[in-house]
């Protein structure tokens, strides 16, 4: 998976604080896809929700960047905004009653053994994974997406999620195990390769 | 004295009804919903007016419906209006242009307030894309057919 890029330069951040439009655009371009992707998967490939959350995050960033003094990594601060925006929005939605699609997952389980790459190239697998992630409790969902999209260290994740490292580990553990259970049929297909 | 008391009792009993008659629907240009209204991209180009309730305990409980009443080549037409929520908490809705360009049109907006119980209509004659403010009738009761037809006739 495409990993996280480097931190934005201090010069651009300074320029953003001064109200420089081009600098803000550069900042946006540097982070937009990652922010959008987290929101996209958080809300089960809902492009509208992802777009709205991304807008909300960058608008809030605009309002508050003057207060960012660099005591933590900028990305950590940004991802805190992303997580809060996603979790807050998830609270406002009715429960994601999406459930696994038994037809899709049975089809996957019954397929001849495929390599990992072939497996994940299948649209139905991607859809099932997206659906399963979206049904995780919001805080567990956020932890998993932050870890694997942004490759944040546990310490940075603790900052972004505003909790202890122990809590980060606990959420990842519970989130992964839940996800594994939801994706049991996909996992069965993998096992048949071994 | 007893007559005075009787009048007072009548007034007290009538108070809710009197208070209810103040309920009305107010209209304004799109800017009345605030210059910061990004509700939809089409807002500024297709919204002809915004409407809000006045004198109802809880504006968010007001039900507003509307029709576009027209006279096109001598034929009467009536089209239901779809109202776009702008600020549901304040009961503010936007009306986008939903009727043909030709002909003469009056928008009839009807509202009901549950508490105090009241109903009111506002009749808004249109001139193309703009409403005719000085011919708009803000009524404190439901509009009658005669009032609507009289306004349409005046336009045509």
């Amino acid at each position: 998976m495409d990993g996280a890029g480097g931190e934005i330069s201090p010069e651009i951040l300074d320029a953003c604080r001064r109200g420089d439009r081009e600098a803000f655009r550069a900042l946006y371009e540097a982070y937009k896809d990652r922010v959008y992707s987290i929101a996209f998967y958080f809300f089960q490939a809902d492009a509208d929700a992802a777009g709205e959350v991304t807008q909300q995050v960058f608008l809030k960033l605009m309002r508050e960047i003057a207060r960012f003094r660099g005591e933590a990594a900028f990305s950590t601060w940004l991802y805190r905004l992303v997580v809060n925006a996603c979790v807050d929005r998830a609270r406002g939605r009715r429960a994601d009653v999406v459930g696994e699609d038994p037809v899709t997952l049975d089809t996957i389980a019954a397929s001849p053994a495929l390599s990992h790459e072939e497996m994940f190239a299948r649209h139905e697998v991607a859809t099932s994974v997206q659906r399963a992630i979206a049904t995780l409790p919001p805080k567990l969902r956020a932890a998993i997406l932050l870890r694997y999209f942004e490759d944040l260290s546990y310490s940075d994740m603790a900052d972004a999620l505003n909790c202890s490292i122990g809590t980060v580990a606990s959420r990842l553990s519970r989130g992964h195990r839940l996800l594994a259970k939801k994706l049991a049929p996909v996992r069965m297909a993998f096992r048949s390769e071994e | 004295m007893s007559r005075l008391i009787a009048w007072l009792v009548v007034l007290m009993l009538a108070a809710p009804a009197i208070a209810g008659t103040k309920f009305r629907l107010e209209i304004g240009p799109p800017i009345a919903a605030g210059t910061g209204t990004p509700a939809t991209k089409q807002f500024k180009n297709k919204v002809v007016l915004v409407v809000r309730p006045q004198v109802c305990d809880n504006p968010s409980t007001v039900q507003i419906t509307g029709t576009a009443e027209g006279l096109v080549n001598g034929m009467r037409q009536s089209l239901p209006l779809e109202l776009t929520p702008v600020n549901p908490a304040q009961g503010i809705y936007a009306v986008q242009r939903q009727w043909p360009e030709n002909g003469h049109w009056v928008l009839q907006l009807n509202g009901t307030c549950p508490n105090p119980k009241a109903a009111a209509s506002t009749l808004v004659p249109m001139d193309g894309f703009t409403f005719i403010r000085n011919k708009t009738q803000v009524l404190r009761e439901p509009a009658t057919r005669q009032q609507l037809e009289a306004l349409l006739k005046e336009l045509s």
Partner: protein
Amino acid sequence: MFTRHVDDSLPRYCDGELSTADRQRVDAHVAACERCRLALEEIQFSASVVRQLKVISAPPSVWNGIVENAIVEAGLPWPERSRRQTRRARGRSYPLRWAVACGLVLAAAAGVYLSIRATMPRPWEVAGVNDGGTRRMAAGEWVDTGGGSAARIIVGQLGTVDVAPQTRVRLGQVSPTEYRLKLDRGTISAEINAPPRLFIVDTPASAVVDLGCAYTVTVAENGAGELRMTKGWSSLEWKGRESLVPAGAMCRTRPGSGPGTPYFEDASAALKRAVDDFDESKNRSEALDVILGEARVRDTLTLWHLLSRVDVSDRARVYERIAQFEAPPVGVTRDRILALDADALRRWREELAWKW
């Protein structure tokens, strides 16, 4: 007797983030604990699945939405510099741009004269109404319509600008956050469907900042202008002075003083004349008397703008007159209005707009 399971250490174990000692401890435990071994397999599988997710590109509409919302939210400085800085920059550089523009004017013998510079990007598309053809044009080029001809400028995906005969318009810069035209003289009619402040028309006496709407702008030979709104609303800005013009209203602009005081086109002739006199500093006191006397409730549009334009000694009169039509909302006090408190003025304007 009790074994502490290592669930919470497993994610870091999988990610290689445990110390050597902790890693060895987990190894030993997992070897002996079925429960934790299964947990480890689940976590490893789940992590491998999530790593397959691809980064999704944010569509352009996301940025457009940010621009749209940023501008309409009070106090946000982006995506442009603070308005004061922008106006200062405009005021300083306008005479220079004007001189450069004059130097670049191409005389039109007849019809629409369009120049093409092959090496420059050409973000503008211009259609000659008479000849039916369209050409792509670059920023800095002029659209100049002679007698009898007209043109239509296609503003990207945002809308169109109809250029009337005897009009000269310079095509300005195009960027993701701005399309700019400069109207030198003549009349254009714009119909724009875009996020606010994306489309701006500079005139000699004001910038017409499009807030997503339809309007007609006319500039006379002496640089005086007139904006008539047909849909939505627009803001005329110049050196810190701003006039908000809703549909059904118009506003004049004057070189050296910028946007005038707006009024509705159905206001009385006497009120309109008085507003023009006031703006041109002709017998301001008498003009104000006429305005206050002629005003209807709808003319609170005009009265509201006058609050910040009259002399301090007259401000209370304007306040009282507006208050006769519509009392200020709770929290908006007379003192705050007379002190031209921005928040109080805005809140009263929002309430008054329901009468416009």
